[in-house]
């Protein structure tokens, strides 16, 4: 069903354009108004489309908007036809709501958070640009349009991480994010190309139908694996870059160099979930290859557990949240990798709320703590900033997975799904599901631990800050607290759209499963016993993690925490240094690359380009110049003499009688036919032709043609002299002939 979906991304783009062009001249209020309204109107259109138009169109493929034909090359099965087209179905619709709703709240929050920032307009321009690009990403109806959005959000991420670019560390963090993403994009692009080569289309619905018919993508491609495996793997490399999975997760913690609202919007709620969205979008291709699914699930689960462990020992508020985001994204990938798409996207949805809430709380806390995010210097903030504390409390319990907050439902359905999945088949890879499930259970325990550590160290016990900072602690203004409260409401209640109602014989309670059915296929069937068991286990683990953290950190650093740090100093240092993965990458990739670049610089730049191409060319010109200088005497009269001689020569050659550049001679036995007419324009003058046949005979006549018979065979040179009798000038043409 057609609908003006283009309006949704267009509004933020218009906002960004206006802010870039005029933002510097506008008052702050105007800038905020334009930025917020742009997202607000986009959200209005999105909500209207989602709630009033989509329900009737959901079964028929959703709402579509074909803006124009973008690329049309060739035709038929080998042709490439790409439209700038948008489609809103249940999946992209839900993502649109998340982006516009949370995006709007974060714009409002940022208007308070960035109040003292001189470069206000630039910040909001980038933020609007990001929203537009993200909406293009989710609404795009084919891979190229999605890729445009994909790169657009990457660009905005880079611009916003390095927003305070005068500090070198921030600019470096931006570069790191961008370059790491480029590695992922490389895989993503190759995946698109490979998919196009074998399926002949890049449109999502056509890809789905090609994949469901199977044959084209099941051809063996390389290493005994079918095309679908390699497409899935390459696309997942792109997803791993964008969504910060092992091994490309390193950029996300550094991305916290950007302003906090950016961390909340881009690096927690929306952009980093694009990879999960993409895998869910391409689920038909992934379903063809259990091996690719297994890779997605295992990488996701490993990332979830690994990042959770790193989170144990981080001392920067936003760094903890960053590793938490990496870990939660791992959960989502484990969800989609076990063919439990509903659960993966459901977790994306709930995570967007509680993680955005947590990040905005981080901003609010740092605002209160005079800009510092060091949790070793916090403590006791519960009474001092009660609203922020309340919101953090709810979001904390939600991410830990406490019933009935949102994280409980989504995380539980991922874990239960991992144990119950049948997608890997009965033999060979059946271990993948339980393996992923166990890792996720451990990661869930870790999540509860590090989040509780964060909560206890920041909000409980006595304050460890210095007197000056303590004096300045204050609750944030209403524009910051308001969005926080709304996010907390979402974090608390968001889970109720995905109640596993089948357990109590009311499947219709699971709104999200029902809702995604046209797009992602039927909800995964989990045996009731498994589901109940894992609900119990998750809940117990969450409580256990919180309890453990209380023992260590309740009311500040306690004895067990000191003991562990004392007994395993090297391990604690290793975790605090993030397992030194950055250093590892530095040693394996970055330093060799630098060495290679240095070497290439010396060889290619210094020697080939500078010495040979630049200085060499200069030298050749110089040498010729030295010779040419002898001719240049600087005496105008000699130049004129040369000029006069040249004119005389031109006149001489121009007035010669016309002759062909080559004689036409045809040989028949001993006789030859000579034609001395010039092709093209003939001279109007009477010309005389003298023929010398090289056998002692000459003919003189006014006709340009002659016939001559040689007396004996041999080689002869025929010379024709064309004479203009009036001027006495002549031209000679020669031709060698052989007669037998």
């Amino acid at each position, binding site marked *: 069903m057609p609908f003006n979906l283009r309006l949704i991304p267009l509004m933020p783009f218009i906002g960004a354009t206006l802010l870039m062009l005029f933002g510097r001249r506008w008052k702050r209020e105007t800038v905020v108004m334009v930025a917020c309204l742009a997202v607000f109107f986009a959200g209005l259109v999105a909500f209207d489309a989602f709630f009033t138009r989509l329900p009737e169109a959901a079964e028929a493929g959703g709402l579509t908007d074909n803006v124009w034909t973008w690329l049309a090359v060739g035709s038929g099965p080998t042709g490439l036809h790409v439209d700038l087209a948008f489609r809103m179905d249940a999946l992209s619709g839900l993502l649109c709501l998340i982006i516009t709703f949370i995006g709007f709240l974060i714009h409002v929050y940022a208007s308070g958070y960035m109040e003292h920032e001189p470069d206000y307009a630039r910040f909001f321009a980038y933020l609007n640009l990001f929203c537009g690009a993200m909406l293009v990403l989710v609404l795009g109806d084919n891979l190229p349009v999605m890729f445009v959005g994909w790169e657009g959000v990457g660009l905005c991420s880079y611009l916003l991480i390095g927003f305070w670019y005068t500090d070198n560390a921030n600019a470096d963090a931006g570069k790191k994010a961008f370059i790491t993403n480029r590695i992922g994009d490389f895989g993503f692009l190759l995946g698109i190309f490979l998919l196009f080569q074998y399926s002949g289309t890049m449109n999502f619905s056509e890809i789905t139908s090609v994949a469901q018919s199977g044959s084209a993508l099941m051809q063996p491609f390389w290493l005994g694996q079918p095309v679908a495996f390699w497409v899935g793997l390459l696309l997942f490399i792109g997803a791993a870059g964008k969504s910060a999975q092992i091994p490309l997760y390193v950029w996300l913690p550094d991305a916290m160099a950007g302003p906090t609202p950016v961390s909340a919007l881009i690096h927690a709620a929306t952009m980093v979930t694009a990879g999960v969205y993409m895998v869910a979008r391409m689920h038909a291709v992934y379903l063809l290859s259990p091996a690719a699914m297994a890779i997605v699930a295992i990488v996701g689960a490993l990332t979830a557990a690994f990042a959770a462990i790193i989170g144990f020992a981080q001392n920067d508020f936003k760094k903890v949240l960053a590793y938490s985001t990496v870990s939660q994204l791992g959960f989502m990938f484990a969800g989609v990798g076990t063919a439990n798409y509903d659960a993966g996207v459901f977790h994306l949805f709930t995570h967007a709320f509680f993680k955005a809430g947590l990040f905005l709380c981080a901003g609010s806390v740092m605002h209160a703590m005079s800009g510092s995010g060091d949790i070793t210097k916090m403590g006791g903030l519960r009474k001092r900033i009660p609203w922020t504390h309340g919101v953090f409390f709810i979001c904390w319990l939600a991410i830990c997975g406490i019933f009935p907050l949102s994280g409980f439902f989504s995380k539980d359905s991922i874990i239960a799904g991992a144990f119950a999945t049948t997608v890997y088949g009965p033999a060979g890879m059946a271990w993948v599901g339980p393996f992923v499930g166990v890792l996720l259970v451990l990661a869930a325990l870790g999540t509860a631990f590090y989040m509780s550590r964060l909560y206890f160290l920041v909000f409980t016990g006595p304050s460890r800050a210095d007197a000056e900072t303590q004096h300045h602690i204050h609750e944030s203004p209403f524009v910051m607290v308001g969005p926080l409260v709304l996010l907390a409401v979402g974090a608390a209640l968001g889970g109720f759209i995905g109640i596993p109602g089948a357990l109590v014989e009311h499947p219709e309670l699971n709104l999200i499963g029902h809702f995604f059915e046209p797009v992602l296929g039927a909800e995964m069937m989990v045996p009731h016993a498994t589901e109940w068991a894992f609900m119990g286990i998750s809940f117990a683990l969450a409580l256990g993690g919180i309890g453990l953290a209380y023992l260590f950190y309740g009311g500040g650093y306690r004895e067990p925490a000191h003991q562990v740090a004392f007994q395993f100093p090297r391990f604690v240092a290793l975790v605090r240094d993030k397992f030194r993965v950055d250093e590892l990458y530095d040693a394996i990739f970055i330093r060799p690359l630098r060495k290679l670049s240095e070497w290439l610089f010396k060889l290619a730049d210094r020697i080939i380009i500078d010495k040979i191409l630049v200085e060499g060319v200069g030298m050749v010109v110089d040498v010729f110049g030295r010779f040419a200088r002898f001719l*240049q*005497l*600087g*005496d*105008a*009269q000699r130049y*004129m*003499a040369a000029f*006069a001689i040249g004119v005389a020569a031109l006149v001489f050659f121009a007035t010669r009688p016309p002759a062909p550049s080559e004689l036409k001679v045809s040989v028949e036995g001993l006789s030859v036919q000579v034609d001395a007419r010039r092709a093209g324009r003939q001279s109007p003058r009477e010309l005389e032709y003298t023929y010398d046949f090289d056998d002692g005979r000459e003919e003189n006549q006014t006709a340009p043609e002659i016939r001559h018979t040689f007396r004996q065979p041999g080689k002869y040179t025929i010379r024709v002299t064309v004479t203009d009798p009036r001027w006495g000038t002549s031209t000679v043409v020669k031709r060698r002939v052989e007669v037998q």
Partner: protein
Amino acid sequence: MPTYYYLTLSFVLFLVGTSGVLLRRNALIVLMGIELQLNAGNLAFLAFSRQLGDQKGHAFAFIIIALAAAEAAVGLAILVALFRSRQTINLDEASLMKR
């Protein structure tokens, strides 16, 4: 009188003018050589005009006379400027183009 005679005179005048331009070192004489070349051209124009009974040649001659006057004015001005800066009008001395 045949056109041939006029053209021969014109050719001789042109040769005299050209050799003056190319061989003399005095800038004033060079200018006079140029005038001679122009007048040789005028003569040829008029000769052909007379032969063909066409008045266009006269028009050309008039234009060339005007042009020659302008050229003489500019040329003499350059000579004066040259003399002021160098105290000479010998062309061998004016070799700024070779440095």
